[in-house]
């Protein structure tokens, strides 16, 4: 008799649990979806986002501090001269290596390198994800007059 009771209970529980499950999932059909339609709707990117760098080329004095602190050596700087008169020939960041740790922004004496809001960088080869920030055609490179369209990430400077 006990076995029969357990059996009946198991059958009942199976039906009940199915019902409870359906009462949770089925109402979601009529609710607004949570997901965003990515390329059209951009998710909320906070001003603190550590995305691809934003570089102010006119401020850079080629002091090599950012390249030195980089844990993965992904920054390559070539310049003529040093200090205020330096002419940056290449300022390459290899994003196949970059950790996005933002350590490079901290030692910069002129605050010319920042972490920006951009996060989408794709390429078919590894060379395509090496960005030369000395190339003024690059939309993420800013000269002194332009305004940077995003809040600059300033980590605590120690």
């Amino acid at each position, binding site marked *: 008799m006990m076995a029969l009771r357990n059996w009946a209970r198991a059958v009942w*529980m*199976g039906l*009940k*649990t199915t019902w*409870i*499950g359906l009462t*949770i*999932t089925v109402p979601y059909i009529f609710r607004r979806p*949570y997901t965003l339609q990515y390329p059209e709707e951009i*998710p*909320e*990117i*906070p001003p*603190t*986002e*550590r995305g691809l760098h934003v570089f102010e080329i006119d401020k850079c004095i080629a002091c090599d501090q950012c390249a030195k*602190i*980089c*844990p993965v050596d992904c920054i390559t700087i070539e310049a003529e001269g040093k200090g205020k008169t330096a002419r940056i020939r290449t300022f390459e960041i290899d994003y196949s290596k970059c*950790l*996005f*740790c*933002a*350590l490079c922004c*901290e*030692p910069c004496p002129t605050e010319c390198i920042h*972490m920006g809001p951009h996060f989408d960088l794709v390429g078919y080869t590894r060379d395509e994800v090496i960005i030369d920030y000395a190339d003024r055609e690059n939309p993420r490179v800013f000269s002194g007059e332009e305004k940077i369209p995003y809040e600059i*990430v300033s*980590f*605590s400077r*120690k």
Partner: protein
Amino acid sequence: MTVIQGVKLDESERAAPALPRDILTEELVFNMGPQHPSTHGVLRVVLRTDGEVVHDCHPLVGNLHRCCEKILENLTYVQGLPYVDRMDYLGALNMEMGLVLSVEKAAAVEVPKRAQYLRVIMCEINRVISHLFAAGQFGLDMGAFTPFLYMFREREEALLLLNQVTGGRLLYHYIRYGGVTRDVTDDWLKRCLAWCDRVAAHMDEYNNLLTYNHIFLNRTCGVAIIDKSTALRYAATGPILRAAGVARDLRKDIPYSSYEDFDFKVPVGPHDKGVVGDSWNRHRQRLLEIEESLKIIRQAVAKLPSGDVSNPKISRGWKAPEGEAYVASEAPRGEISCYFVSDGGKAPYRARMRGPSFQNISLLGETSRGLLIGDLIALMGSIDITLGECDR
């Protein structure tokens, strides 16, 4: 020594008597992983089975090995921190805590109270993220896809919360020696509390849909029991040990980072269903821990003291003085610890990280004997491993 598919297998793990078999059949050798959906990464498990019954099981790790410890020795103190994040990519802040706490203890660095509280808030949010992921992943392993996505919804909001403060979604690089990188705003604290309420409100949904589902209960209750003595022998920590009935939580036992200021319970198995230490209890343990974490977050936000968030003495080129320390802290998957040795140089002399998953996986061999393949999945899912932190 047995060699199966070019892998030397551990004899001691096979010492237990063979299972009774009524029909003499040939054994199958399965290669589960490294590309199997339920090994949660690149774990490779070699199984010997009799049909569906697992005779023995050999986890083979190391596919994601990067020698984190060597990297830490080669970089300066400040440079090394972003690497520790990458150990357990689902609980990155807790990994940072692991290294930072022992370095701070060895070098006697003072951490401002506000920074300690911020660390607590962030680590607990990270723990909730990780536990939501683990519980959802476990449901996924059991064939329930929907609760996984429901949990991802709350997880997504938490990732945004952390992103607003740290700048990263998964790898935060937030905790530094002597403090944290950035202070929070009052607005953020409000959002954080609102998020806590949302998660708490959704807990019933998860429980009804997954935890107390009759099919789920039948699949996980009494299955793959890791009892107290096994867990202790294998030094399994975290939810596994607590679900096995040991009230061990470093946040309570050896408080760090001001955890003594907060009032929270340590949920200990057995919970209301199942046997102590079974798969269901481990799953339930995680959900209960989420609730406790939310409690801690609320208290920490309420009590958050004002002041500095970093120690001004720590500069970029900071070096720890000669010394050593061993500090463990409670990460989502177990106890992360670091045995830190400094010789006063610009890089750590030795930073031995303990990956909780590494020890947790090692009991797979003993516990899985005699399970069905479906139960083995339940065991692996409820142990909740992250290979990044296991292989380091």
